[in-house]
């Protein structure tokens, strides 16, 4: 069996004796006999490292990894610089926990402070927390921040990622919050309907929208924000961090909270996790921000120092009234995002964003020529939707055969495509030619 217990049997015997026990059984005699497990666990015998690593490798090989990926919908295949893995594998970062003891945790604390700064820069906000579990939970946790005695109903645009909406619904089930979906029109939030819904509802607490939205299309966020604010509600934007480098910031759009998933910032798609939820807000919302926050201060000699701060907000004080219980977060993912952003720099981030949207436009043109039709006419960032007259499954199977993961099938005849800087012209041309062959009834 495998074991990470260093002490040998003999040493264990000695220690038992020194602690006053005859045996392990004796030591565990404080556990009532009725609840003691009287049989061995029904598990396989333990493996050696060599066997375990072989088994895990064999399992991993049962997955199909695609060389070319045109699927996004919340998990984006951006380039991860070599330095990112190298830094985030450092065991000082990997094996430490929440930096409760500032004196021996300045490295982790400073890295979080730097992360907060970069997220503030991206979003245009004043404060950012140290991370959420993912973008969806960050969106869900934005609702309690916006609620007060008079404002209890949350709104979400139906153009938000359905996975995000589902998580918000679950969280709202917990907090007994009414969550209302705002319909869409032409692939974007229906502003007229929104205005009417909010006008009719004095209890409206907030609207959560996504920019670019689930279909890849740009919403008129500024206008949405105005409508929401007019109704006395808060405006929450769920945003793509790569897009933020070139797009109007949530601050510029008047958002009260910016949330999103930081996965595009250096994290592998990895079957969905671990990713990074981020949240930023204007100073006015500072004390409502859930999660950990690092602040700058000085030590007893006047040196600059960093500490966890504003801890009084949640479970520590008035914990039975807490609106968030977040404790462990995704710190190493936040570090990953920091290293990614530092490696890319502002210019690199903009380049990734511009290439992603440029390629999406090239792909859409190529797919149009191949015979697919876009479902919406709105301007888009790096995702877009087409029909798929030959059937989504058939098309995706044909692409898969060539090692290509096509777009996400939304229905039997609708596909959501995505590109990043990783997709080359050559592979997009290949996709188009496979599509063209299928549409025209010939094999590629």
């Amino acid at each position, binding site marked *: 069996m495998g074991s990470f*217990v260093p002490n040998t049997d003999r040493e264990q015997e000695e220690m038992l004796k020194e602690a006053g026990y005859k045996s392990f059984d004796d030591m565990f005699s404080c556990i009532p006999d009725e609840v003691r497990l009287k049989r061995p666990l029904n598990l396989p015998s333990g493996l050696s490292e060599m066997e*375990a*690593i072989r088994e*895990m490798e064999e399992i991993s090989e049962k997955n199909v990894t695609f060389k070319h990926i045109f699927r996004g919908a919340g998990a984006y295949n951006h380039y991860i610089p070599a330095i990112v893995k190298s830094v985030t594998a450092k065991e000082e970062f990997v*094996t430490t926990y*929440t930096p409760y003891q500032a004196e021996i945790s300045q490295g982790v604390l400073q890295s979080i402070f730097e992360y907060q700064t970069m997220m503030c820069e991206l979003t245009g906000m004043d404060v950012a927390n140290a991370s959420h579990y993912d973008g969806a939970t960050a969106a869900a946790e934005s609702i309690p921040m916006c609620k007060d005695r008079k404002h209890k109903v949350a709104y979400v645009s139906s153009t938000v990622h359905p996975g995000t909406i*589902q998580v918000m619904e679950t969280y709202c089930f*917990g907090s007994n919050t009414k969550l209302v979906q705002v319909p869409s029109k032409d692939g974007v939030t229906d502003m007229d309907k929104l205005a009417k819904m909010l006008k009719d509802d004095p209890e409206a607490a907030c609207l959560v929208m996504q920019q670019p939205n689930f279909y890849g299309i740009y919403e008129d966020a500024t206008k949405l924000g105005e409508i929401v604010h007019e109704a006395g509600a808060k405006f929450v934007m769920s945003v793509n961090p790569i897009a933020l480098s070139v797009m109007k910031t949530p601050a510029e759009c008047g958002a009260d909270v910016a949330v999103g998933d930081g996965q595009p910032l250096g994290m592998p798609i990895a079957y969905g996790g671990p990713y990074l939820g981020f949240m930023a807000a204007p100073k006015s919302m500072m004390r409502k921000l859930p999660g950990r926050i690092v602040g700058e201060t000085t030590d007893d000699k006047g040196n600059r120092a960093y500490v966890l701060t504003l801890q009084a907000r949640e479970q520590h004080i008035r914990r039975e009234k807490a609106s968030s219980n977040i404790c462990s*977060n995704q710190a190493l993912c936040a570090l990953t995002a920091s290293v990614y952003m530092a490696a890319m720099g502002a210019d690199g981030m903009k380049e990734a964003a511009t290439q992603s949207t440029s390629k999406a436009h090239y792909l859409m043109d190529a797919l149009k020529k191949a015979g697919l039709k876009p479902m919406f006419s709105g301007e888009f960032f790096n995702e877009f939707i087409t029909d798929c007259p030959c059937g989504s499954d058939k098309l995706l199977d044909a692409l898969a055969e060539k090692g290509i993961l096509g777009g996400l099938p939304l229905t039997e005849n609708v596909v959501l495509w995505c590109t990043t*800087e990783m997709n080359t012209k050559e592979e997009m041309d290949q996709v188009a030619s496979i599509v063209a062959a299928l549409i025209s009834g010939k094999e590629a």
Partner: protein
Amino acid sequence: MDLIFEIGSEGRKLSLLPKCDVPEVKVPESQSRKTALHLPHVSENELSRHYSKLAKRSHGVNDGFYPLGSCTMKYNPKVNEIAASFKGFTGVHPLQNERTVQGSMEVIKKTEDTLCEIAGMDAFTLQPAAGAHGEFTGLLLIKAYHVDRGDTKRTKIIVPDSAHGTNPASAAMCGFDVVSIPSQDDGCVDLDALRGAVGDDTAGLMLTNPNTVGLFDKNILQITKIVHDAGGLCYYDGANLNAVMGIARPGDMGFDAVHINLHKTFSTPHGGGGPGAGPVGCKEFLKQFLPGHHVAGDENEGFRYEIETKSIGAVKMFHGNFLVIVRALTYMLMLGKEGVPEASSNAVLNANYMRTKLDDLYEMAYDTTCMHEFVMSLEPLKHKTGVSALDVAKGLLDYGIHPPTMYFPLIVEEALMIEPTETEPKEVLDEAIVALRALYKEATDNPEALHSAPHNTVIGRPDEVGAARNTVLRYQWTD
């Protein structure tokens, strides 16, 4: 040291992306960013050195003893990292079809099955990303159960006053009212108080066992029976599971739902605060409420996704912190049937060894066999010398030892909570014992020195009050 924004210079960069091979398309003017974007401008050399410096100013399990009570800072095996780096795991999209992610689904199924056996549960969801997230999920199951039965008056969750801070917070997030019940002098649940607290408004009880003072509650079967008899459910906070794996199972103690911290009990690294994973298990009757995609099937017939009929929905996008789960499964495979209880036995032994080597000097909050951790009260020492739990904790820093958890549980004054874990060799425990004894002596001989400890760290004690009052939460550019 400098912030990353204070090094480098405008125009410095890495050479990461190729030129664009298609015509450039810009974001429409109406959507484009007007605010300047400040990010670091550094070469790879500067970037690399910056983080090397930060790493040197951090202390991980790999750098020394880290007996942070209730956090189970055990050694993180390197084999876990190798497993989590396989391209087959890192390179698959969460929305690929079932046929192409059989490996990931197998990981999930095997992990769920193993956790079921260890916890004595019938089903698990791996979606929750952390312990607190698991608590939230577990309580939602309880809520959904009552709601489903139309039993809507059950709005109260009972939580002992010794509970982890996240318990009442989780209950509050689920819209429950929190009923706090006092502990007895022996740290265990006061049965009379519990009997007095339960009723037809009781949704459930949240408890960890061993409890937060490190003791196994001998009345556990009575406790869960009292709650069940009142129509409530019992939730097990798995934070302390490392004490009892293969020894006693939450399911056998009468619990209906449980969360487990993979980053504590199953050796996945803590990452400076996360990502962890907080799988939630439950008895058969709660399974129908589990969130997310459930993996059904087996290796032969193939795995498939199923969604529970009355699912609470999803507590996270996609399938949980998957690479954390990969690490935990690797560890479970290595430990297996024999290694799992061996780990718990030695976690408990290490704690009792340290406890009995210190209890002549330090006051133990509960002077009896502890489980995987024990709590000392420094109240007598403080009374005698003025040296507080904080001072002793800071003094430990100068010995290269991460301090225990301070001032928790709240029911013990001047608490220091020590959890050595099973992966520490005897010598490390002995060194910490020597250090703690030396600090006791120093507290008596020279309390001033301890008030100003630590003396050998890169910074001295930070001004935390100032940090909260005059909040500086980001670097500001002057341009």
